[in-house]
Every structure is written in structure tokens, then in C-alpha cells.
């Protein structure tokens, strides 16, 4: 079943055409890679899909609904979550609270209940606590629940950001260079983690990444952008051997 | 008051404390400063004579000063502190209506006499038994100016420029407007600004266009200096009138003789009046503080002496007795005029119109209440 259709989107910045006629049809449950040289427009595509930018042209349809002009929070509520290329955590909140915030929409109690600490409040808060901890546990962060997010190491911050995005219970998860700043070993672990959550949460995932082992290892399908335009699309093997991609992006020999 | 009061010699205190509340900091701190100066001078004089005479003993006076910052909540604190902690017998000030209004209910409920020097707002003394003042109230000055403009200057068209955010200015301006109209005159421009403004060009240009014969500026002297200057530049030739807030020697400094030439303002006294006490006060004040006293100083001096007189007349430190004695003040010869209280805290006293010529105050007319 098709989950999201991106039709013909174009994004201009002061005469610079960052994305041109971009199309994408995402099937429910897919794990797709989006790669391309620096400045090709990958992050810009993410920004359009999540309502940070409104495209100069084109439409984005998600689960049958046109979300092109929706605000980020509406888009999140309709089931899309993302991480950022430059990590954006709630730095001065604890790891646990970072996750709890992501559950804000699942909490239904009103101000009144909060003030009086009614049973409804207690019940929902303890539900949230429990679920948050479960999530932290999945990402091996429980022990650091009380750390401020900014005091985590880089890799931990990346994991927390993914966990936080997952906590909003999305159907589609957008990951922007999750392996940046990780060494080979760590990105390998991350790769396993991603394919594991892909299965476990039955998610659709769109992944931007420059670490080829990660992309080639887990993506079912890959789309390559250059200068805002799609230059190739296909399975990892097809992409690996596509001369255009080699020339623009991979370079002569593919690093193992 | 007779010897029957509790003020037997054994109970007489070692000193009599009088409180003073005024803005010692903030943008009108010079008003607080001159209140303080004048009050200190009065206290020194009394103490030089051995103190206040209560029964047959002379008791020295001590002045306790509180900074009300020209903020009502601070004035309230100052009043509570003066009354309950320092145990003063009476309070002088605050000179601003804003603070006096906050202090008055406290003085009233604590049964402590308060004599404000310069709070001209009608409400301050309303329904209060313990609250008095030494100055006249806004409506009176507004009336005096309106009458003077209509009757003496024979003006038909008047304009007003006043500070909308300050109740003194606003009070005078509105009464002037109403009274002048009653006299058959026309208010051709009624313009305002806010405290702290320095540029009045827009309003004055409007006034110029309305072509009034009289321009009423019921504002503080420092602002008046700027207003006169800008009015002249814009070519306004109307006769200028003002209120007692003009009365500061600084006005000559700030505005210059030329701009003031021929202007009028209402005041409590005329400096050239042959009032010996007043002349003595001015000389002494100048000597002591190297400054010429302004209206607040003179009014404070009167206010504290009214209180002194009340205490001596009461002959005791009983606050109720002091109140009764102050309320009975008649024909007190103050330096700002002759003061009597007739059933309320507002003095019955006359006002004078002063004209400024050649850098000097010249008596122009007396207006009785």
C-alpha cells in the first residue's frame, strides 16, 4: 500500500534551485535510502516533508491526506517523525523528559487534572513513565535516564534522538545522517539497530546517509539526488554500479 | 489640650520623632531633596531653641527620613515603618499625590497626623481626619489661572499643554479648561504628553495652528523650560501661564530670562512680598544649601511648623490631641501664606499670581479662595 506520494516538488532559495521535480512513492513498510553529493538537496527534501519548508511547487500526500502546507506539529501528528542532521535535543532536559515530551499528545489529561493531581493524571503519568522507560531500554539509555541530554556523548545523543522520534509513534520515520560522527564499528551497530526497529515497529523509513556500508547494507531501494534532481534509483547493487552515481557521488572504487 | 492628658513629665519622651516621606531617588528626587533640606532646617531651628515645648519641658526633635521613591508601595512601607517602628508623632509629606494617596489611609488608621507639603490631589484628604496639607488643591489653582486669564488678561482663546500621566498637571489642566469655558472662553487646543518626554514639537505646532491668546503650562519647571524654548522656536506668541510647579530658582537657569519674560504663574506667595519670615527662610536656606528654595521646600517648611505648633498646643504626645490641635489651626502665619483649617485637611489660603519680569518674580494679583 502506498503510504506517501511526493509529486513534483521544487524548492527555490533566492534563485537557487535546491530541489527540482522530486518524486517519491513510498510503500508502507519500505526502508529507502536517499543519497547524493553534498548540497544535493536531501535535507531540503526532509524539510519539505516535515513542514519546515513549504515547497515552491508540488504536493506531498501522506496516508491519503495532502500535507504540503501543514505545520510540522500537524505533520507529526499525522504520523511522520524525523531526526536532524545537526542533532536537536532538548539539551537542558533529562534523557527521560526528552522521551516524555514526545508522548505529549498521548496524554489526555487537562490542566485541571495536573493541578489537582487527579487519578487520571497519575494514571497517565505512570503510563508515560513506563513506556518511556521501555523505549530508553530498547536504546540502551536507561542508565542515563537522569542525565541532561547535552551531557551525553555524541553517539548516545543520536540514539536518544531516534528514540524520541519513535516515541511519537510514527508510521514514517525520516533519519538524516544518523551515522555521522560514528566510527565504522559504531555505525555498524547503528545499522543493526535501524533494521531492527524497522521490523519491530513495522515502520516505513527514509534514510539519508553518507556511510555506504550502512546504506547498502539495509536499504531495499535507493534514490540518488544531484543538484536537486533525481539521477538514479534502484536496488543497492544497481546503484553501486551506476556510472552516473559513481561519477557524481561514490568516486572511483567503492569503499568496502 | 490641658494638663489632664497622659503627657505627665514622667511619661515625656527623651525626644520627639517626626517622620518625613519623599522621593529621595528616582527622576524627581530633587523634590525629595528640597523637602528634606527644608524639614531639616526647621528641625534645627527648633532644636536650637531647646526643642518643642510640651507642658513645661522642652524636648528636642528628631527627623526620620524615608525614601518613598515616588512609588505608592514604597510610600506605604515608609509610613508603616515610620509609624510602627520609629514611632513618630507625625509625618510630613509625601510631596507627591501618588504617594500621599498611599500613605494617607495608613496614617488615618494608625491615628497619626500627616501633613503633606505638596500633594495637591483632591482625594488625599477626603474623608480623613488625620490627613492635612499645606498647599492648595488642584481645582483652586486651575480656577485661579482661568480667572486670571479671562478676567485680567481678557483672553478669549486659550490652549493647554500638560503631562497626561501626572495627576497634578492633569488636574490643573482640566479645571482650567472647565473654568475658562464657564467664563465664556474657548479652549482651542488641549494637548498632552507623557512624563519624561523632551520633544513637544508636534503638540506645540498644533497649538500654534490654533492661534491661542493664552497658553497654560501647568507642568514642572524643568519641562516648562523646554516647552517655552520650543514654543518660541515655533513662533508661538501667546501669553504663558503656569502653576506653582514653576516655582524653582532653577527655572531661570534652564529656561533663561528671555523666555520667561512676561510669563505668569500661580503660587503660594510672592518672593518679593514683604513677608519677613519668607525672606529669612530664603536667606538661610541659600546659605545652608547653596540653593534657592523652591515651592516644595517652602511648603515643607510650613507643613512641619504646622505640626510643631500642633504638638506644642496639644501639650502632650498624645496623637489624638495633636490631631485636634492641628485641625484647629487658624491664621497660621506661614511663609507660603496664612493657613487655617476649617473642618477639613485642606487649608484655606490665598493664592497669588506672579509675573516674571527681568528675571524676577513680580506680584501680579491675589486670589482668595
Amino acid at each position, binding site marked *: 500500500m502506498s503510504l506517501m506520494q511526493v509529486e513534483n516538488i521544487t524548492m527555490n532559495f533566492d534563485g537557487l534551485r535546491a530541489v527540482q521535480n522530486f518524486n517519491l512513492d513510498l510503500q508502507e513498510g519500505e526502508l529507502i535510502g536517499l543519497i547524493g553529493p553534498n548540497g544535493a538537496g536531501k535535507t531540503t527534501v526532509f524539510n519539505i516533508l516535515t513542514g*519546515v519548508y513549504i515547497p515552491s511547487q508540488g504536493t506531498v500526500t501522506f496516508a491519503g491526506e495532502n500535507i504540503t502546507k501543514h*505545520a*510540522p*506539529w500537524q505533520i*507529526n501528528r499525522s504520523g511522520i517523525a*524525523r531526526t536532524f542532521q545537526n542533532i*536537536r*535535543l*532538548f539539551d*537542558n*532536559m533529562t534523557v*527521560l*523528559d526528552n522521551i516524555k*515530551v514526545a508522548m*505529549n499528545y498521548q496524554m489526555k*489529561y487537562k*490542566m485541571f487534572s*495536573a*493541578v*489537582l493531581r487527579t487519578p487520571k493524571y497519575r494514571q497517565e503519568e505512570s503510563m508515560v*513513565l513506563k513506556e518511556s522507560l521501555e523505549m*530508553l*531500554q*530498547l*536504546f*540502551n539509555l*536507561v*542508565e542515563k*535516564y*537522569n542525565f541532561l541530554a547535552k551531557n551525553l556523548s555524541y553517539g548516545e545523543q543520536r540514539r536518544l534522538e531516534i528514540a524520541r*522520534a519513535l516515541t*511519537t509513534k510514527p508510521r514514517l520515520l525520516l533519519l538524516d545522517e544518523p551515522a555521522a560522527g560514528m566510527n565504522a564499528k559504531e555505525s555498524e551497530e547503528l545499522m543493526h539497530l535501524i533494521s*531492527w526497529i524497522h521490523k519491530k515497529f513495522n515502520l516505513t523509513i527514509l534514510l539519508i546517509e553518507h556511510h555506504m556500508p550502512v546504506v547498502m547494507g539495509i536499504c531495499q531501494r535507493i534514490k540518488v539526488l544531484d543538484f536537486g534532481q533525481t539521477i538514479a534509483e534502484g536496488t543497492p547493487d544497481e546503484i553501486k554500479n551506476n556510472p552516473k552515481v559513481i561519477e557524481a557521488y561514490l568516486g572511483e572504487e567503492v569503499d568496502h | 489640650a490641658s494638663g489632664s492628658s497622659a503627657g505627665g513629665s514622667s511619661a515625656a519622651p527623651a525626644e520627639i520623632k517626626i517622620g518625613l516621606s519623599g522621593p*529621595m*531617588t*528616582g527622576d524627581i*528626587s530633587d523634590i525629595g531633596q528640597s523637602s528634606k533640606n527644608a524639614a531639616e532646617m526647621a528641625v534645627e531651628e527648633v532644636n536650637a531653641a531647646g526643642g518643642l515645648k510640651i507642658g513645661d519641658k522642652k524636648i528636642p526633635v528628631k527627623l526620620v527620613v524615608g*525614601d518613598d521613591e515616588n512609588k*505608592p*508601595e514604597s510610600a*506605604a*512601607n*515608609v509610613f*508603616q*515603618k515610620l509609624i*510602627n*517602628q520609629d514611632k513618630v508623632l507625625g509625618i510630613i509629606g509625601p510631596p507627591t499625590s*501618588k504617594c500621599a*494617596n*498611599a500613605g494617607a*489611609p495608613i496614617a488615618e*488608621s*494608625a491615628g497619626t497626623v500627616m501633613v503633606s507639603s505638596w500633594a495637591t*490631589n483632591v*482625594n488625599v484628604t477626603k474623608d480623613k481626619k488625620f490627613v492635612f496639607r499645606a498647599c492648595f488643591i488642584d481645582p483652586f489653582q486651575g480656577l485661579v489661572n482661568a480667572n486670571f486669564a479671562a478676567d485680567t488678561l481678557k483672553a478669549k482663546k486659550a490652549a493647554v499643554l500638560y503631562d*497626561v*500621566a*501626572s*495627576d497634578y*498637571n492633569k488636574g490643573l489642566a482640566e479645571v482650567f479648561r472647565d473654568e475658562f469655558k464657564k467664563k465664556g472662553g474657548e479652549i482651542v487646543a488641549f494637548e498632552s504628553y507623557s512624563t519624561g518626554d523632551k520633544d513637544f514639537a508636534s503638540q506645540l505646532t498644533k497649538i500654534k495652528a490654533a492661534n491661542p491668546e493664552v497658553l497654560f503650562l501647568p507642568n514642572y519647571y524643568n519641562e516648562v523650560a523646554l516647552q517655552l524654548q520650543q514654543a518660541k522656536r515655533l513662533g508661538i506668541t501667546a501669553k504663558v501661564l503656569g502653576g506653582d510647579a514653576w516655582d524653582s530658582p532653577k527655572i531661570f537657569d534652564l529656561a533663561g530670562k528671555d523666555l520667561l519674560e512676561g510669563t505668569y504663574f500661580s503660587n503660594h506667595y510672592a518672593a518679593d512680598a514683604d513677608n519677613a519670615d519668607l525672606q529669612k527662610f530664603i536667606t538661610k536656606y541659600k546659605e545652608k544649601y547653596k540653593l534657592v528654595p523652591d515651592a516644595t521646600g517652602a511648603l515643607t517648611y510650613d507643613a512641619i511648623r504646622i505640626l510643631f505648633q500642633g504638638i506644642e498646643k496639644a501639650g502632650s504626645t498624645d496623637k489624638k490631641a495633636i490631631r485636634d490641635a492641628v485641625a484647629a489651626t487658624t491664621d497660621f502665619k506661614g511663609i507660603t501664606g496664612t493657613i487655617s483649617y476649617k473642618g477639613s485637611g485642606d487649608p484655606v489660603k490665598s493664592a497669588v499670581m506672579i509675573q516674571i519680569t527681568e528675571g524676577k518674580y513680580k506680584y501680579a494679583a491675589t486670589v482668595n479662595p
Partner: protein
Amino acid sequence: MKIIKSIAFWTVILALGILVEMLGRFEYINPYVIQVLELIGINIILVSSLNIINGFLGEFAIGHAGFMATGAYLSAICTVKFHMPFALGFLAAGLLSGLIAYLIGVPAFKTFGDYLAVITLGFNMIIVNLLNNLEYVGAARGMVGLPKSTNFIWVFCATILTLIIFRNIIFSNYGRIWTAIRENTLAAEMMGINVVRSKMVAFAIAGCFAGLAGALWGHMLQYINPSSFTYLKSTDMLTMLYLGGVGSLTGSVLGAVLMTGLLEILRDLGVWRMVIGPVILVLIMLTKPLGLFGSRELKIVQPKSDREEVQKYVSHAGRKHNNEL
């Protein structure tokens, strides 16, 4: 057991309040001291409500005195013009100020940061200007003759209640949302948070309590005047807030107590008081840039920690994860 403990705690607190009130009534405690205590309480309400916006929400509002003014005036109109009981005026003040703050929020949140600061300041100036023109409430002359309805016990209860309410809100979903917005607005939006709405709610709450404080303030002084609510008053509140530590309720209390108390103690210094006061402020900021309490809270303000629940997870941590992988 826990319930008994907390009942005992609150009984002691309440008893303390009543005791001070009684001692005050029979003049065992100087009315001056009582009044300063009342002022401190009112300032605590003001500062902690400002803290909601500036501390937890992370905006920079500099016109809080405007909300205080609407509360003070509305309650005064209720008691003076309509002879309603103070309690009614008090509630009305809170509601109206909250509503106005909410409405201010509508246009205000098209912009942010220092632009929003100027809008709040502008609102403050507009309110003062309006009050200066409204003859009905005495214009620049202000309103006199407000009944002396504010007494220590009123202020005491209002302060305690305010703090409890704020604490409960801050340590709930609402508070977390505000803090998240403060920390990273875009990320917060990506968590499905309707940022504009959340901000407006925060403004409404802060405005409401500032209005309540205004009502108490007016009925303590029995006199109100537009010029008491200018931006100078707003900056006083800012000073107390940042002195105590922004983002901490404890800090707001401490800031209000210290500033109000300290300036009162220094009152006898006259002119130099306002020289020394700022010097102390600057010194404190230099030594404790985050304010005295930073963003920490006293133990009693913090809710029961989640530790027990967490412990269960920590002990199994890792194992389960690896198994599933």
C-alpha cells in the same frame, strides 16, 4: 503514611500563616513587618508567574506590569464601583487578566525573541496610556478608597496556592512542553506540539496570576494609579526573577524575598540605597550568572522522583535489549 505526612505538613504551614496573622492583629508583630511580608508574597506571585513565560517557556516578556494593572483595576472597579465582595473582584481580576494575556498571545506569537519582548512592552505602555485616559477609573489621579481587603492570611494563602499550582503544572505534561519549546522550538514542533497554542496557554496562566497579584496589591495599598504599572515595575520583576534564578520556582521565591527584603532593610541609606542595590545585583550576577538558584529546585518543590520505577528497569537494562536484537 504518605498522606498523613502531607496532611501534617500542610497543617503546619497553614497554622504558621494563621499564627502570623493573629500575632499581627494583636500587634505582637509590627504592622510594618506584616506589610512587608504581604508585599513579599505579592511579589512572589508576580515573579513566579513571570517565570512561567521567561523561565520555563524561554521567552523574554518585559511588560508583565500590564497584566498586574488590569487585575488591580478590575478588582478595584468591582469593589469600589459595584461594592462587590473582594473575593469576587479578586477572581474577576484573574480571569480578565488571563483572558487579555491569552489574546495578546494571538498576535504576539507571529514573532519571537526580542520582537516579542517589544510587543509585550508595547502592550504594557498601551495599558498605562489607556488608564491614564479613563476618567471612570480616575485617569492619572488613580483610584482611592479601595477597601483594605488584603491581609496577611489572604496573601499567604494566595502565595502558597500559586506555588502549588505552578509546581503541579510545571511538573506535568504542560511544563514539559514549555521547557521543550524553550530548549528547541523546532524539535518541539516535530514532537507534535502546537507551539503557538502552548505559548498562549502559558501566557494566559502567567497573566491570570499577575492579575490576581495586582488585585491583592491594590487592596493592600487601598490606592492604585496608572504610573505604578509602567515598564519600571516590569523591570523590577525581571530583576527579582533573574536574581533568584530563571527556570526555578524556588529561585522566584528567593528572588522576591531577597530583593523586597533587602531593599527594605537598606531603606535608611537614602540615595545610596539605589546605588548599593544595583551593585549587589551585579555582583550576584557575576558570581552566579544563572541567578542564585539557577534552574535547580529545592527538594520539596520537586515531585516524588521516578526513581523506584526506574530502578526496576535499570536492573534488567541491556540484557533484554541484546536478546531481542
